[in-house]
Structures are given as C-alpha cells and as structure tokens.
C-alpha cells in the first residue's frame, strides 16, 4: 500500500499537511484546515484509512497538530474519529495524539467534544 503525502499550503486556502505512512501506521495531519471542498479533501484521507484498516490491519498512531480548522473540517474529523473508534472496537490497535497550544482553550474544549462524541481516547498533548 502506498503512503499518502499531501503538501500543506497557505495560498488560496489553508490546506493541511498530510503524511500517512502505510509501513509504520503513523498518520499525521498538521497545519491549518480551511478548504474549498472539505468533503472531497477528507474523503481521500478516509479512503486511505479504510484501505489500511481492511488490508494492512496493523496499528495506527494518529497524530493531529492542527492549529486551526473550520467547522466543515470539524465534521470530517468527526468521521475520522468514528472510523478509528470502530477499528479499535473491532480489535485494531489505535492511539490518537492531539497536540495543541496550551493557550488555546477553545482547542482543548474541541478535543473534549470529539472524545465525548465518539468515545475514542485522545491523548491531549499541550505545548
């Protein structure tokens, strides 16, 4: 299975940097997320994860370092968290680490809302 690499930009939109590694299972998304077509963008990530979960079937370390995301993106993150939670419930090994600026109280609340919403365990790592 191929790795998924998307270069982040700050041009017309704020496209996050994506690095999903099929060998190590380390999947990282960082930067800022505010896109023209959020669903199209995240469906690429979701398809990759589905394939990894169904074919590779190894552990996933999902690392989020988004400093900003809009509400459309938040819907897509919810979908990803649900997929990871389902994988975990089916016996998959999943770790989610979410890095955030300690001054960003709204971000910590957002992470808590994903935990409440999906039941997934998210390690909150402030910097």
């Amino acid at each position, binding site marked *: 299975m191929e790795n998924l690499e998307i270069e982040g930009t700050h041009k017309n939109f*704020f496209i996050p940097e994506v690095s999903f590694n099929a060998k190590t299972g380390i999947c990282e998304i960082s930067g800022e997320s505010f896109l023209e077509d959020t669903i199209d963008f995240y469906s690429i990530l979701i398809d990759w994860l589905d394939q990894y979960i169904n074919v590779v079937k190894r552990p996933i370390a999902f690392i989020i370092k988004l400093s900003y995301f809009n509400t459309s993106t*938040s819907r897509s993150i919810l979908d990803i968290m649900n997929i990871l939670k389902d994988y975990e419930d089916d016996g998959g090994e999943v770790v989610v680490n979410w890095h955030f600026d300690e001054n960003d109280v709204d971000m910590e609340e957002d992470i808590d809302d994903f935990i409440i919403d999906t039941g997934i365990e998210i390690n909150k790592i402030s910097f």
Partner: protein
Amino acid sequence: MHYKRDINILDFYGSLDENTLLSYKGPIDTRILQVIGSYLEGLLKESPKAGRKVFKIFIELAQNISYYSAEKSIIRNNEEIGTGMVLISDSINHYIFVTGNLVKNDDIVTIIEKSEIINSLNREELREYKREQRKLPVGQKGGAHIGLIQVALTSAHPLDIEVNPIDDDYSFFSIAVKIDK
C-alpha cells in the same frame, strides 16, 4: 473634473467610527477570505488569544456570506459568489466583528430561531447543541450546521442579531460579535 460616484464617500467614511480596523463590502470569494484572514492573523499576533478568536470568527462568518448571501456577484469564470459586508473595530477591551448581507425572507426565520436558541443556552448546553447538530448529515456546500454555534462559543458572548426588511423578498441580516482582549 468629477466622475460619477455611486455613494457619498464622505458620508460613508463618517459612518465608520474611528476604531474601525477594517471594512469591506463586495463579493467574498476565497481570495478575499485568504487575504483578510492572513492579514488578521498577522495583525493580531500582538494579542494571540483574541487574535485567534477574531480569525476563527472571521472565517466562519465570511464563509457563510460567501455561500449563503442572497446577493450574488459573478466573478472570474462565471463563478457565483455571495456578496456582503465585513467590519472589524478595535476598542481598548474588545474587538467587535460585524457582518451584513441580504437574506431571502423565506430563510430569515430559520436563522433567527437558531440564533435565539444559541443565545438561550449556557456554554455546556451550547457544546451539547453543537455535538448534536454536527452529527446531522452534511448540508449543502459541505456545511456542518455549526458555524453560528461555533462563533458563539468562540466569542463567549451572545450573538447580536439585527434584521432590517428590504422588500417582500429580502431582508438585510446582520450579526455583531464581541471578542474580549
């Protein structure tokens, strides 16, 4: 020599108070979002907490205008873009962020009702409302139904909503949001 002007520029200038940080009226396409967004990010570096909030609120509300304003402009490749107004003013203790745009009268009740629900909830209830709404199927344009809820959460103050009827079909809809420094 005078060219024809559509407005009295002095009246317009005088109608904006001295705390105005930015005013924009026109189509809100992605370039404008990006340019003003980056400008705000840079400008507000001096107050990181409020700056982050102003930026987040700007993106949500400006994107709402871009997608949902009843007034459209045709720009570049025949792209239809929502038109509206964005104002930011800077006082000692807070920023006030105001947007205005035309809304169809048929849609205005829904927006007012949603705003009233938002303003009636405390923070915990608002978070619960956001989680509830976010689970709904994705709306047109990929919307998550939670833009206004998120704006209220980010601002941590009630939304100040104003509706001015224009004619049988349209009203001018305005939101003012307060962001503490």
